[in-house]
């Protein structure tokens, strides 16, 4: 399927099937067939490596934000040595604008469980943890239930489907901290500590949970795996954009008529997602700006969006990124100074404080933006902000500092007039 007929795409992860969250319904609709195939069909899947190769070939780019080829990541695991190895599934979902993994927990938990089991088999892993943000109490309960059901039916546990392969699968959860979505912070949190990201190297594949080889994948990334096994890498690559294939769970929020999560091929034109999928702008307003993939991805002005599609190649040409495909849509009445201040507040609040450029930098970004927002800023403050962003980027343990710096740099550059106008004025009129 080319991107042009995206409207004919049939959803795989969140299809319109009633009660798909129940294990019997999932199995009736072809569920756990992929797991059975890799465990038992030795002609097709000679060994775990053959599974890794197929997934690598499919090029499922990580849906947690960084877009790294999942199969390639799996291939970094060192050879099994008989000791424990872990898969840690990232269900922290805290990047503002992102609300897609919860749809998998709610509507199709077993496709994620099946994907995680396939991943674990492929990497010869013995224990799987899924880490869900603590606020998602409802989804934590749903996942507990789904995993208990899969244990009961023999898809998890000892000697799965008589194959001799055994794995345990546990639900764990956080207690409110955005940083725990960062993979090494998540490992610290899983180990029962404060969520301080670790210095890399060593990478988690070498030293992860309790110093043992560990792979971290996003929930949606893993939910794509069963269809790659069932239909093949070629099918997956035929969906959506060439260098960023497969479907996305687009989470569309902000000033549109029909916000929500939509499963469609990658590479759909941004304007068609807004107008055809999300029903267009609310209250007859005009589009002003789009944040394409969660709060850290650089904002785009409406006039930058012609012909731009939701994939890394296209977004790069206008200086942005796919991120989590959590699209935040803003209308003509949006005050960009207020929006940027609120984003800066978020990153300052969530910085773990280990690195000076991040701890102090995010604080200064917020403070200066508040001053500008209150009409007390000067134009030279804008240059100070831009200077600060270059001081923060690439100088810290994890990417939170970069995630905080990008929106500041690009929002100011792309809406400079609005920021300058606010600087000169003394009174702030609240919209």
């Amino acid at each position, binding site marked *: 399927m080319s991107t042009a007929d995206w409207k004919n795409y049939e959803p795989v992860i969140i299809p319109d099937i009633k009660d798909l969250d129940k294990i019997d319904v999932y199995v009736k609709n072809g569920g756990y067939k992929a797991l059975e195939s890799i465990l038992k069909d030795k002609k097709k899947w000679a060994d775990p490596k053959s599974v890794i190769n197929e997934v690598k070939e499919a090029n499922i780019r990580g849906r947690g934000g960084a877009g790294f080829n999942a199969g390639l990541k799996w291939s970094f695991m060192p050879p099994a040595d008989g000791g424990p190895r872990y898969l840690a599934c990232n269900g922290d*979902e805290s990047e503002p604008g*992102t609300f897609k993994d919860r749809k998998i927990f709610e509507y199709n938990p077993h496709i994620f469980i099946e994907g995680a089991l396939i991943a674990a088999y492929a990497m010869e892993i013995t224990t799987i943890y899924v880490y869900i943000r603590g606020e998602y109490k409802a989804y934590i309960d749903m996942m507990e239930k789904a995993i208990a059901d899969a244990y009961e039916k023999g898809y998890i546990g000892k000697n799965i489907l008589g194959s001799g392969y055994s794995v345990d699968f546990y639900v764990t959860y956080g207690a409110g901290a955005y940083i725990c979505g960062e993979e090494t912070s998540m490992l610290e949190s899983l180990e029962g500590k404060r969520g301080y990201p670790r210095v890399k190297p060593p990478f988690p594949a070498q030293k992860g949970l309790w110093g043992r080889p560990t792979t971290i994948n996003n929930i949606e990334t893993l939910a794509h795996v069963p269809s790659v096994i069932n239909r093949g890498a070629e099918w997956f690559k035929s969906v959506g954009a060439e260098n960023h294939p497969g479907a996305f769970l687009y989470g569309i929020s902000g000033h549109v008529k029909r916000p929500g999560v*939509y499963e469609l091929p990658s590479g759909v034109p941004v304007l068609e997602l807004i107008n055809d999928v999300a029903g267009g702008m609310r209250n007859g307003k005009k589009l002003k700006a789009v944040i394409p993939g969660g709060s850290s991805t650089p904002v785009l002005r409406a006039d930058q969006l012609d012909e731009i599609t939701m994939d890394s190649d296209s977004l790069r040409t206008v200086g942005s990124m796919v991120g989590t495909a959590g699209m935040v849509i803003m209308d003509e009445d949006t005050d960009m100074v207020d929006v940027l201040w*609120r984003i800066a507040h978020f990153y300052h609040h969530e910085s773990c404080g280990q690195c000076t450029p991040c701890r102090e930098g995010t604080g200064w970004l917020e403070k200066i933006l508040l001053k500008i927002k209150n009409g007390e800023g000067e134009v030279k403050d804008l240059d100070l902000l831009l200077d600060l962003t270059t001081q923060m980027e690439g100088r810290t343990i994890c990417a939170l500092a970069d995630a905080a710096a990008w929106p500041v740099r690009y929002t100011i550059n792309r809406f400079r007039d609005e920021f300058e106008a606010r600087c000169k004025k003394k009174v702030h009129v609240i919209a």
Partner: protein
Amino acid sequence: MAYEFTKEDLKEIEKIKAKFPEVMPATLPVLWVAQKRFGHVEPEVQKLVAKTLDLPEAHVHGVATFYTQYYKEEKGKFVLDVCTCLSCQLCGGYDILHYLEKKLGIKTGNTTEDGMFTLNQVECLGACGYAPMLQVTNDKYVNHLTPEKVDKLLDDLKEGKEPEYEKIGMPRRKNI
């Protein structure tokens, strides 16, 4: 006051410990068990958690203070966490927060005199498409807020009626 876990709590704690190869990973989940039992994890409760798991008190304290969902002091009977982050800001999250401040007669961060409600503003709760929204005491999400819906929520809570889980249907494909 001396805090003690019940027999059921201790059973649950044993189950939690069985998930991990070490004891330390039980810190977060056992703090949750404690908060469920006592309504908060003030320092005396942290001590109990440390003692129960045979971990240093300083470790448990460090964890309890890192994560925002643990209540380090007593809160109102209901904690209203209003999201004012990016998408909620765009869709009127601050209006809802200010409406609640007026209605409850308190500033954000405080508890009403009768001990019923604590009002907070929080960061993105992963419900951006259903903004503005709030979460009640670390549990149910209440989405698509309007002043009327807030009024009803407060009335219900005062009567001890907690909100139901709001299932949000998938957007239908035929709309496209």
